[in-house]
């Protein structure tokens, strides 16, 4: 089932056609995102990643073209509330997203604004705090948390809105490995339960773990496919100055020793098993 449909989306931060001329942050983007997909959006700085993601819940409205979330056009202001309940956003810097003085108030902030019953609010807060593992931080003031804890808190407050789709704009790039892993694991678990996830990242190692990778360049979709497909298109990646996953780069250096296409070896587990297979089989074929 299609959750988000993007038709011929162009966007310019400038206003007026004269100013816009040649200054588009996004240009003719067509995408269809099905429910339950896990999508990584990659691209160099300034390629349009954040601009695209901000269109997914109506934070930005297309200059041209249309974005529909569950059939609702983001151009229709009366639908924005519903759209934002469907698509929750987490940004790179949690500081910009925290407003209250107590951790649990932060998580309750969204549901309270939805005008829900107190029991429902309590239940959602409990659930969101449990999913993100933040129970231990109850009663703490958000501004005294570490960056990783703050980011988990923004995830929790977005989850308390019970969205169908989670959009993460480089949400883990400021986090330490353990916090990153906790956010990743949390998101992965939610995805396994049916949540649609769209995450932008600069890390190819992270993108490799998604089901679908969308590559943006100069505001346009330069490639779109499964990680393996994307990583096999080395020339495009090189032209776009994007990096292959770390283990693919290692594999490329020892490819004469291996029996499989190196672009398949996009995480340590896969590379280690390819190397040990080759070692056990003995000798080299190529």
């Amino acid at each position, binding site marked *: 089932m299609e959750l988000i449909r993007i038709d011929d989306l162009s966007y310019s931060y400038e206003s007026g056609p004269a100013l816009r001329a040649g200054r588009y942050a996004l240009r003719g983007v067509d995408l269809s995102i099905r429910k339950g997909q896990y999508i990584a959006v990659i*691209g*160099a*700085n*300034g390629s349009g990643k954040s601009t695209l993601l901000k269109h997914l819940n109506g934070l930005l409205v297309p200059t041209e073209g249309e974005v529909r979330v569950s059939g609702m056009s983001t151009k229709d202001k009366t639908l924005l509330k519903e759209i934002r309940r469907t698509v929750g956003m987490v940004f*790179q*810097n949690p500081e910009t997203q925290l407003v209250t003085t107590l951790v649990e108030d932060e998580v309750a902030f969204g549901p309270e604004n939805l005008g829900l019953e107190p029991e429902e609010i309590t239940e959602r807060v409990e659930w969101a705090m449990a999913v993100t593992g933040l129970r231990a931080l109850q009663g*703490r*003031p958000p501004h*005294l*948390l*570490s*960056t*990783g*804890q703050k980011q988990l808190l923004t995830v929790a407050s977005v989850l308390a809105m019970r969205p169908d789709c989670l959009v993460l704009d*480089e949400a883990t*790039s*400021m*986090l*330490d*490995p*353990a*916090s*990153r*892993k906790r956010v990743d694991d949390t998101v992965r678990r939610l995805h396994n339960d049916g949540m649609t996830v769209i995450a932008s990242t*600069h890390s*190819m*190692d992270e993108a490799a773990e998604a089901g679908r990778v969308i590559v943006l360049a100069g505001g346009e979709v330069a490639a779109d496919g499964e990680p393996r497909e994307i990583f096999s298109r080395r020339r495009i990646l090189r032209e776009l*100055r*994007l*990096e292959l*996953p*770390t*283990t693919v*780069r*290692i594999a490329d*250096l*020892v490819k004469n*020793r291996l029996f499989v296409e190196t672009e398949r070896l996009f*995480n*340590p*587990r896969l*590379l*280690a*098993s390819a*190397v*040990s297979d*080759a*070692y056990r089989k*003995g*000798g*080299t074929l190529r």
Partner: protein
Amino acid sequence: MRNHKDALLAIEGVYHSYLPGTPFERRSLDGVDLSVYEKETVGIIGPSGSGKTTLLFHCNGLLRPQRGTVRAFGIPIGEPGAELRDIRRRVGCVFQSPEDQVFERYVGDDIAFGPRNMGLAVETVRERVRGALATVGYPFSFKDRLTSRLSLGEKRRVAIAGVLAMDPRLLLLDEPTAGLDPEARRDLFEIIDRFKRRSGRAVLMVSHRMEEIAELSDRIYVLVRGRVVLQGTARGVFSRPDLLSENGLSLPAPAQTVRLLQERGIPVRSGACSVQEAADTIEELFRDRT
């Protein structure tokens, strides 16, 4: 063994609590010793909330040690009469999202802000701006660019140039590459490496990216709950996967691959930190067998 007295930065037994004497009191540093010598890059890794940023704040006097001593260039920070101004001229800080601090209309003015405040002559300021731009890989003409039109990567380089224009001896970096694309990241690696090679200079860096810490650091300190639990060369530190994972730290992908091979009973050497080292390790494996 290097003489402790030669350290550009020497931290000894530093303790720090946030909100001491309140119900929210939380110990952040619990007796930390750390030193940085010239021509080296020292990396600090540790889980979230381990005190890394608090420790950096002690290195240029943003925080004073509640106990213990911090000496930068022989000046004891936090003691009465210490010239913090001298320390801050020699210790340049690039903290998280430094591009947020770029505020002038033109790149040149932004970079000149620090040197002008130091009361340097116009010509000297100009030379400082020229030099700083060159270090971050831009021609002098870049000074006339509008800061509002820069990409994130460009802005971050300008912010770093602004710090370099103060001619610091010790560069403190907190998550310098967060949010940068691979190309901008590689450029920044080069800038950092070039800086530390000059005499009397050094870099102290905090990062969550094990790959970049492994690649850039000559020595690494692992900080956990305000204590140094491990220190040594990158190879040494990343040869201790158990200790790292116990503390919620991961291995860089190359070291992780090697570790997984060992778990499968393949006889490979531990601790590869970079792509090239991992490839060499795998090559050795096949070469040794034949």
